Structure formats: structure tokens, C-alpha cells
């Protein structure tokens, strides 16, 4: 919204206008600016991903051992 408010006077013709109707239209959701992430947050996410991968690898190793047995 512009900070300087100027007063606009509406010019409505008195002749020739039959009717005016305010039709409620549908509203779109607004475009989303994506927030940037902080260094701490990125490190947290990276640690979480790495921990998950290590656990996955350990589970795979366990499964292979069970298959061999």
C-alpha cells in the first residue's frame, strides 16, 4: 500500500448509467516469497539428513547380514 494517501474524487456520470452492481469475485492466494534459512538452521537440517542416512546404511547392513544367515 502506498504510504501517501491522496484523495480521489469519483466522477460518476449522472446520465447514461443504468445500474451498478458489486459482484463478489473469487480471490487468489498471494504469491509466496520464500524465507531464507539461517546458517544454524541449515546446519541442523544437514545433521538431521546425515544422521538419517547413517541409520539407513546401518539398517541395510543388518538386513544383508540377516539374508546371508
Amino acid at each position: 500500500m502506498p504510504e501517501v494517501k491522496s484523495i480521489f474524487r469519483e466522477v460518476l456520470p449522472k446520465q447514461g448509467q443504468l445500474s451498478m452492481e458489486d459482484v463478489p469475485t473469487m480471490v487468489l492466494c498471494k504469491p509466496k516469497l520464500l524465507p531464507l534459512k539461517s546458517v544454524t538452521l541449515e546446519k541442523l537440517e544437514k545433521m538431521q539428513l546425515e544422521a538419517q542416512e547413517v541409520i539407513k546404511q546401518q539398517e541395510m547392513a543388518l538386513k544383508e547380514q540377516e539374508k546371508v544367515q
Partner: protein
Amino acid sequence: MSQSVLKLSQNDLSRERKESDSALPISEAAWSLKTRALTEMVYIDEVDVDHEGIAEMMLDESSIAQVARPGTSLRLPGTSQGGGPSPAVRPMTQSGRPITGFVRPSTQSGRPGTMEQAIKTPRTAHTARPVTSSSGRFVRLGTASMLTNLDGPFINLSRLNLTKYAQKPNMSKTLFEYIFHHENDVKNALDFAALATEHAQFKDWWWKVQLGKCYYRLGLHREAEKQFRSALNHQEMVDTYLYLAKVYQRLDQPITALNLFKQGLDHFPGEATLLTGIARIHEEMNNITSATEYYKDVLKQDNTHVEAIACIGSNHFYTDQSEIALRFYRRLLQMGVYNCQLYNNLGLCCFYAQQYDMTLSSFERALALVSSDEEQADVWYNLGHVAVGIGDLTLAYQCFKLALAFNNDHAEAYNNLAVLELRKGRIEQSKAFLQTAASLAPHIYEPHYNLATLAEKIGDLQSSYAAAQKAEDAFPEHVDTQQILKSLRQHFAEL
């Protein structure tokens, strides 16, 4: 003779002691290095991290009144003055705050009203709300210690003689940090810090700060406050101010935190981290104008401060000044920030600043840099907006569908798809999409308002009234919602 024998044996003993003493520092140094390396692997600056679990949120012990006075609470943002753009222009988050330009681990991404909603929030690092602060993220971080060494932990805490090590200043601080960050064992860390503080005769500010951190983790906020205050009496440090402000924010006393920051600025004039803290509090209380002022002060001190640039940029974008927003985001690009979010924001700013040549290439870069499905969904959603802007509704339809393919819970995409379906005349499909959007995101007003409009058109006045009331809850100042409600009430009165 016996005396000389005694002296000899004493010399032997002292020589042995000297030899073992010279061996000690080397092994101590090696131990110290390994401990610090292990700690550094998982070290996160405690100032940024939030530990609030769902239980702490819902069952708040430190509140002294049922309802806070307006402008004094971080949990009731809508009641403070000097807000920024309305929800008609700026997307809102679950907690009723507008989305910010920058997100940290402690950014309140959502403060759900009921226990049900609290449990439904997704559990990733950036939107996670662990059930209690002792579970969730910190269990995951604690497993780092188990994963690094499969033979067993490097330091076995249960067998450690804490008193002995608390008295060795060379090793105590390293050991404390290891216990606190790597092992995540706050209780042992607290005991250790207490012993060390005693040994230092309560004159060492560093140990008081560590005690304060442990109390904060355990949820004993008043004790933490005492420790930090006493540490400040010994030695003024910026970090101590930051930790103390975090305690006040957790106690939901933003005004006290603001006063504290101002006190800190008296001692450390122009300190960027303190100014950032003030700006963040203003943003959380929805005072966007004051927040922008303080972020600008931060930039005067440090003009590469990413958070300040991102927040000012997003404020300018949502106040219809996309060219200025573009300048801010281009500055970030100049600084070398290179990720999906920045390119997405650049694309949006370029489009709305009418620099159409750069728009699509920025979005292409953003798509190339995505790191998760939710990010990709958001980029496709914004591309859908660009498509609507150029009038290509088929492309817009495909973009919104793609957004949904990557993230099935993207409420805004459902809402916009519903609008497009209505343009094609498919009323039932539109209604289904709107209902999905409304149930996924009850805090945004658009799906409710659209449902109200649609229902009124097809004559279903009862559901139109219900939806319009929900829209009013989400955004009370919306003129069109008021008009619908007025006409419906007149209609019902006439019956």
C-alpha cells in the same frame, strides 16, 4: 646414610613425578583436541536454537494472567499496533503472523490452538515441534555421539569423576562443552558446571553462563535468569545479553527483553546482534514498521547481514515496492548467496517489477537448486502466479497441479486451482478444491471467502454464512466478507 637414602628416594620420586607430569600435558592436549573436534561436529550456537516442545507450549507455567494486555505478548501478535500489510496482500502463517523474510530454528512457525493441531504439525528440522523438549530433535542430536563411534562412546560419562575434572581448568571447559553439545546430557552438564563454579569461587562469568544455559534447557527459566544476571555483573558480554533475552522471550515478556537489549546497546553501542534481536522481537509482535527501522540500523553497522536484507526485501515486496525489493535481493546475490529461495524471490520481484526478461531464467535457476519437495511445490506455485499474470491460464493450471504433485498439502495451490476451475465453469470441482484448502489451512481467509461466494451464487446460504464467518475470523477487516455477511443477515432476517 639413612638421610641420604631418603633424599635419593625423594629425588627419584620427584623425577618420576616430573616425567609423568611432562607426559601428562601431551596426552591432555591430544584428548582436548579430540574432544573439541567431536564437539565442533555437532556444535550449534545456543542463542538461535529453540527448545519449546508442544507440552511446554500448551501447559504454560509462567503465565500470570489469563489474557495478556495488548502489545505485551509474543503469543497474541494481532493485538499490537503498527502492523504492516494486511492479509489481503501478504500471506499469513498458522500463528496469525505474516510470513517473514528469514527463518531460524526458533522462528515461531506455528502456535497451534489445540493439542490436535499441535500434533499434526510436520516434524522436520525447521517446522518441528517436538512433543516435549527432551525428545524429538535432541534425541536425534544425541545419537550423533552413538553414531560417531560404534565401539562405544569416547567418554563414558557414568564412570567419569566429575569433581576431579571440574578442578582442572585446562580440561573442564572442553569437557563441559562436550557433555552439553555432543552428549546432550544436560543433567550431568549441570552438575559439572556447578562443581566448576564452586571451584572458581563463584567469580568466573563463563561458568555462570553455562549454568544458565543448562537451566534454560531444563526449563527452569527463573534460575537461568538469575545466573545470567549475575554473570553480567562480573563481565559484560554480548552473548550473555542474547541468552538472557532468550529467557525473557520464552517467559513471554517481550518488553523486558527489549529493555534488556537497549541496556546492552548502552554498553555495546551499535552491536549488530543486539539490534537484530530488537528487530526480531518487533517482527514477532507484528510491528513491521519498527522492525524495518531496526533492520536498517543493523545494515548501517553490517551491510552484509543476510537476515536484515531478506526481511527488508520481503517487506518492500509486500508493500508494493517490488523494484526496491529487487535491489535488496540482488545485493544478496552479489554477496554470493546461492540457493533456491533467493532465486525464487528474485523471479517474483522481477516479474512484479516488470523486468520480464529475468523472470523465467531466475525461476529456472530456482528449480535447479531445490533441495526438497516442499520447496519445489512453492516454486511451481509462484510460477503459476506468473502464468496467471501473463494470462496463460492453461500454464497456470499445469503449474498449480505440479505444485500439488510435489506437496499434497499446499493449501494455496488448491485455492488457486479452485478459482481457475470456476472460470472453466466446473462448480463441483471448484467446491471440492476449496473445501480441501479450507480444511488444510484454516488460518488463511481466501478459501473461506471463496467458499462463501461460491455457495451464495449457487444458493446454499447456510454454508455460505458458515464459511463467511470463518473468513471473518481469519481476516476481520476484509470489506467483501463484511458485505457478504451483511447481505446474508438481511436475507435471514427477512425470512
